[in-house]
């Protein structure tokens, strides 16, 4: 019960903060920290970032094209538990999960034919009882090789 109340209060607090300062910090985090993970890949310009609580999930749908080589980068702010991500095709088949790669932050891929993929991101938990759940910014960024 105590944990539920804590979770609710923290999430309620986040709901109040997110439109303001936290969201602005998220933008800065995505641009200055996460974008670096794309390395030599050109960022496509899309912005996908949100404040997530440990244990929370987010989904992203995107069509990827056969002629491009992509890098996916998923980053979480300092102090957050690591982030898991799994890639599914349209039939729900798992194509990749970073759980098999030591929770790697990036994934490089290309496709034989264009298709829509689903990216499911989950913030893992520290699993510490009687402590407020940690929250912070999680950014999902895509880059492609410009030729």
């Amino acid at each position: 019960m105590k944990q539920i109340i804590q979770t609710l209060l923290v999430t309620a607090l986040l709901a109040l903060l997110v439109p303001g300062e936290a969201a602005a910090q998220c933008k800065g985090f995505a641009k200055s920290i996460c974008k670096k993970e794309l390395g030599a890949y050109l960022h496509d310009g899309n912005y996908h970032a949100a404040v997530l609580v440990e244990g929370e999930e987010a989904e992203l749908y995107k069509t990827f094209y056969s002629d491009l080589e992509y890098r996916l980068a998923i980053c979480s702010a300092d102090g957050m538990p690591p982030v898991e991500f799994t890639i599914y095709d349209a039939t729900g088949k798992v194509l990749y999960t970073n759980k098999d790669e030591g929770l790697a932050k990036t994934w490089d891929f290309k496709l034989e034919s264009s298709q829509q993929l689903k990216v499911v991101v989950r913030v893992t938990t520290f699993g510490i009882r009687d402590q407020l759940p940690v929250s912070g910014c999680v950014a999902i960024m895509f880059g492609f090789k410009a030729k």
Partner: protein
Amino acid sequence: MIIMKSKLKILPLILGVTALAFCLAATSCKSKTRGESNRDKEEAVSPDEQTMEQIKSAEKVFNALPTPLEVAQLIKEAGARFDATLLNPVENKSNYTTSKSMALNLGTYVCDLSFASMYDETSLLVNYMGAAEDMATGLGIIDAIDESTIERLEQNINNRDVIMEIVSETFLNSQSYLEDDEQHAIAATIIAGGFIEGLYISTSMVDMKNYKGNKLVATITDQKMSVDDMIRLLETYTDNTAIRELLGPMHELKSLFDKIERTSEPSNAQYNEKTGMTEITGAARSEMKQDTFLAIREKVAEIRNTYVN
């Protein structure tokens, strides 16, 4: 572009009410009998569980549309030649006075800018960045594009990598500003403007004498999936008049793309040690008949003409 599922939209309200309920329960319990207190506990279990379930199911959903830079790269990969006459002339910018026309044409100008940068058309860059700046300023988007962006562009006019980086930042800054400012419908309208411009340029570049086996046609065919994504994104903001007006013609465009038949084999992922990349196999076969292509080309131009001219 983030879309909160309907449950998440009311989550702050649920949480606020629940938190208030907890506060009230905490202060009022003292005066209650044990029986009443136990009854309260029993009654409280259900909303807690319900709220926790709502938190669990209130996941965030992002829809990522192809950005102008990505579309420009795809068209270049298809071997199409640059044609400056297809771009929206910067002189038109003074015609755009409503937030709808400014948002659509911000997407349009960023897309034109992406094409110009991808094809090293440096003489066009500063003017198109200026036009994009005017649209962004008109929409009240602060710091996305300013004089320093244009100065940086001028200083690096022959450095393609830096130029593309600036174009990417321009789009990112506009989107993130609007998302933070809860102006999701405007952000979606900008994306729609960029998407239509990409389709307009690509469909206009197809040489009908070489239609069969044309790589650019294959690229346009692949946009079938993105048209569905675009509609899904716009349908999230039907309370916005500009989006409602855009949805009608977008649905007509979707019905034309729906005529494209697409079959695909099951996909498989394999890591290639040489390239360091995961290769996702699974061929897809799509066919777009010439009359469908011509109808799409006409519809795209028709949609674009409603806000460009």
